[in-house]
């Protein structure tokens, strides 16, 4: 898709912004329709409805009719959540009720429910909801340009899997024509290349192992399960951050800035910091529109209010991934970890000051390791096929150790681990500002050599048999 859209778009550069926007919009709709044409009307209709709602809210605010503006905003939020609920969660609820009733002997065989889940629905409904909230808060003027608004919603690099852009950051960029800029195009292409490396050399390489172990927990011991949990967290990161890099890089080539989604999460020293670095556009979305409003509402309750808002927020993060009890429990797990982190925050800081640990490197690494371990266990829960499987695996991790499962895993433990080391080296360099820049080196020779080696590494060692991205299912 990018291969067709980018050159055409570049040809339109130096022209009016409108031509570029319409071209990108067409490309985005073709892209979306190609993924699943049946749900294209839903995307188009909701876009028009929210466009009209935005103008309605803006007019109500300007006329001093705050109540009408609030009602229209509430309608927008309810509609967005309703659409999401209908397509993503209703079938699950019907099945759960059917199961419950069948336990009482009622015939529920007719209660099967098949709904096509539109691609990217969790991403574009969040974009639509944030738009009406921002217009109501008067932090953004409603756009009068339907083509610009529709492009914000459907922008092809991000519609499938994010990052979830905010209207205030994205829409103003569409006002100016984007000019062909060799540096931006080269930088964007390198970002895409890096994302591709993470996807095919790490995520897809590790997948056979994590699938084999986590899908068949009864056949594996605690050692293999522990390794699978660690590898799955890395796999998920490489998959999703890799996709995000590709989306951001593609947008960059088109002259558009898209929000960052990851900031080296495995360097986080506690769970709160981890969530500031992992799937940033989802967590900041929920912080701004759910956590802070709830926190403000519950402020008279003191710390209890804060814990309540935290738990609701994290439960929503878990459930956002889909209708599955493992996701709900994942949210609760991280919610509890966050509450504990918050409760211990001040005593911890005092303790660290007293023992002179603030600057101690070993202590920082110990905290990073603890955070990573907690997140691995969370990732295992996230990936488990059922809560029963997760309980079984956790039990085995405690009591049933033995030799590692290694059948047919040579490429995983050689090429996979080598790729992980390359990724870790880059992240360490970026996090600690070590100043080694290979892809962006001043010397053209080093830049070209790095790109060539990276392409060769991907071609010769990557898993190139088109696996899909984990986050497409959400």
């Amino acid at each position, binding site marked *: 898709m990018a291969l067709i859209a980018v050159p055409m778009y570049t040809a339109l550069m130096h022209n009016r912004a409108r031509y570029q926007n319409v071209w990108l919009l067409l490309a985005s709709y073709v892209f979306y329709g190609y993924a699943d044409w049946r749900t294209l009307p839903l995307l188009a209709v909701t876009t028009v409805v929210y466009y009209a709602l935005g103008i309605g809210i803006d007019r109500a605010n300007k006329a001093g009719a705050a109540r009408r503006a609030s009602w229209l905003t509430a309608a927008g939020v309810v509609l967005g959540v309703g659409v999401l609920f209908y397509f993503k969660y209703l079938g699950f609820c019907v099945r759960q009720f059917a199961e419950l009733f069948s336990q009482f002997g009622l015939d529920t065989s007719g209660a099967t429910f098949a709904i096509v889940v539109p691609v990217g629905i969790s991403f574009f409904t969040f974009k639509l909801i944030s738009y009406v909230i921002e217009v109501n*808060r008067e932090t953004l003027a409603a756009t009068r340009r339907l083509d610009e608004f529709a492009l914000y919603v459907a922008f092809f690099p991000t519609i499938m899997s994010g990052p979830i852009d905010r209207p205030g950051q994205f829409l103003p960029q569409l006002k100016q024509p984007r000019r062909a800029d060799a540096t931006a195009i080269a930088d964007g292409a390198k970002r895409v290349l890096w994302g591709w490396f993470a996807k095919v050399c790490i995520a897809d390489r590790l997948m056979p192992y994590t699938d084999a172990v986590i899908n068949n927990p009864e056949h594996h011991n605690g050692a293999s399960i522990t390794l699978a949990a660690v590898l799955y967290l890395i796999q998920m990161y490489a998959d999703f951050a890799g996709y995000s890099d590709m989306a951001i890089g593609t947008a960059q080539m088109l002259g558009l800035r898209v929000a960052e989604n990851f900031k080296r999460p495995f360097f986080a020293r506690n769970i709160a910091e981890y969530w500031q670095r992992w799937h940033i556009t989802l967590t900041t979305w929920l*912080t701004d529109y759910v956590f802070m409003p709830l926190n*403000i509402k519950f402020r008279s309750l*003191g710390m209890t*209010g804060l814990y309540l808002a935290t738990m609701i927020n994290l439960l929503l993060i878990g459930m956002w991934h889909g209708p599955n009890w493992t996701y709900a429990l994942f949210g609760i797990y991280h919610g509890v970890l966050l509450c504990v982190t918050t409760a211990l925050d001040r005593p911890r800081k005092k303790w660290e000051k007293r023992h002179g640990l603030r600057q101690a490197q070993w202590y920082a690494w110990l905290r990073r390791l603890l955070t990573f371990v907690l997140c691995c266990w969370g990732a295992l829960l996230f990936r488990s096929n059922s809560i029963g499987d997760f309980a079984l695996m956790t039990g085995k991790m405690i009591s049933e150790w033995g030799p590692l499962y290694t059948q047919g895993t040579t490429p995983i433990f050689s090429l996979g681990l080598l790729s992980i080391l390359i990724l870790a080296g880059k992240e360490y360099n970026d996090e600690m500002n070590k100043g080694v820049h290979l892809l962006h080196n001043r010397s053209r020779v080093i830049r070209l050599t790095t790109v060539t080696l990276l392409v060769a590494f991907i071609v010769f060692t990557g898993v190139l048999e088109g696996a899909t991205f984990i986050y497409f299912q959400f």
Partner: protein
Amino acid sequence: MERSAIFEKLNDIFCDVLDLDEVTLDEATSADDIDEWDSLSHIQLIVAIEKGFGIKFSSKEIITWKNVGQMVDSIAAKL
């Protein structure tokens, strides 16, 4: 209440809640300028300000503040 008097009272409240020895707030001060002013202490500040001035803010007001100046606008409008 004079705007300067509101600022003085706010200085005291900020010192108290954020455990600071001294602070001088001005119109443009924001959470970026004070390390101790994070999302956790933000809520505690709001509760202390409401109590100190005997007022109640709406959620929309709180969410849209960008700096102390806007916070003072909201306080002044309620006194």
